[in-house]
């Protein structure tokens, strides 16, 4: 169950951001997960209430974007979406491929409710 450890690390990061922005509450958290990250979206969702209890993010909605496993063929350069345990080029059968998406484990964005009038978009 390393999802709990990952969830705790997520809450730490979100708390730091919320603190820096002087947020009142965290409305939602969006994370990007690839199948090759080794993290199960469902387990992460189950771990979230445990990890976020007593934190500013305890009522936040956890949104998980499951990202496709995508490879580029080193032989024919085709890019394809493939199953996570079959990283073989479906076009030409070449197995020497490069993973271009699918191992992400990213905190992508946080939606905060701040006391002051909201700022539309800022880069962190």
């Amino acid at each position, binding site marked *: 169950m390393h999802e709990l450890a990952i969830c705790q690390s997520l809450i730490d990061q979100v708390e730091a951001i919320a603190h820096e922005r002087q947020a009142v509450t965290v409305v939602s958290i969006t994370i990007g997960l690839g199948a090759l990250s080794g993290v199960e979206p469902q387990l992460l969702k189950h771990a979230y209430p445990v990890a976020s209890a007593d934190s500013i993010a305890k009522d936040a909605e956890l949104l998980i*974007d499951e990202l496709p496993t995508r490879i580029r063929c080193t032989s024919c350069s085709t890019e394809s979406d493939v199953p996570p*345990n079959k990283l073989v080029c479906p076009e030409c059968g070449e197995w020497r491929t490069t993973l271009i998406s699918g191992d992400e484990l990213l905190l992508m964005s946080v939606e905060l409710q701040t006391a002051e009038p909201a700022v539309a978009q*800022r880069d962190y």
Partner: protein
Amino acid sequence: MCNTCGCNITPGNEELIRPGGKLATTESGNEAVTVLHNLLHENDHMASHNREHFDAHNVLAINLMSSPGAGKTSLLEATIQQLDPDLRIAVIEGDLETENDAERIRKHGVKAIQIATGSACHLDAHMIHDALHNLDLSEYDVLFIENVGNLVCPASFDLGQHQNVALLSVPEGDDKPAKYPVMFRTADLVMISKTDLLPYLDDFNPERTRRYLQEIASTAPIIELSSKNGEGMSDWTAWIGQQVAERKRHLEAHPALSAHAHHTHDHEHEHEHQHIHSHAHSHHR
């Protein structure tokens, strides 16, 4: 992955964060903060710090991963017997409970530190960092980290190692790379262990393992080995020797790596401890 050059933006997520994408705006007037941090940012930061320690002392760190009972400790025992005696070895053992594995290693006169993870299913970079406080790295050339027996969780946590080795023992079946692609994709070397059992378990076909590894685009070399009858041991010790030599060449070519680590060590260290401290503090509030 770093958080400065945009390499976190992959074809899988770029459409989400492009202007007008669903992460760029929020309907209810709340503040949307784009982050794009790896969730294991803190672990990865600590792992880089560990790697600096290793590089500063010319230590090659090898992370051994497998399911429980694949023969990691037996492999280490055989390795101690057969590795070039000029290479000084230390071992960090990770298990949920007991000092058993560390004691097995110590019987061979080799320094072993046991990490008992309690209920944690993997080692993380902070546990390794704590263990390094009990290890004078200047006395060693190769550090083996025997991870918790588990084909799932350890794959997600960088410890600061230079090489990942995944063991797959013959009784487990030849299709493990297809079942656990995340683990086997991280491996720089795959070892098929307990090959002395091949005559009895004839449904295990090493060729099939090879094919499954290709299907996850793994270019890792494969060694078939039995720590019991010694088959493949010379390939393994030769591979270690080769990694040590390559590491030395790399550090000689980039003297700043080890020099820099020496120079910044104290500062970095202080920073880390402060960091940990302030975290502990915020949890207590």
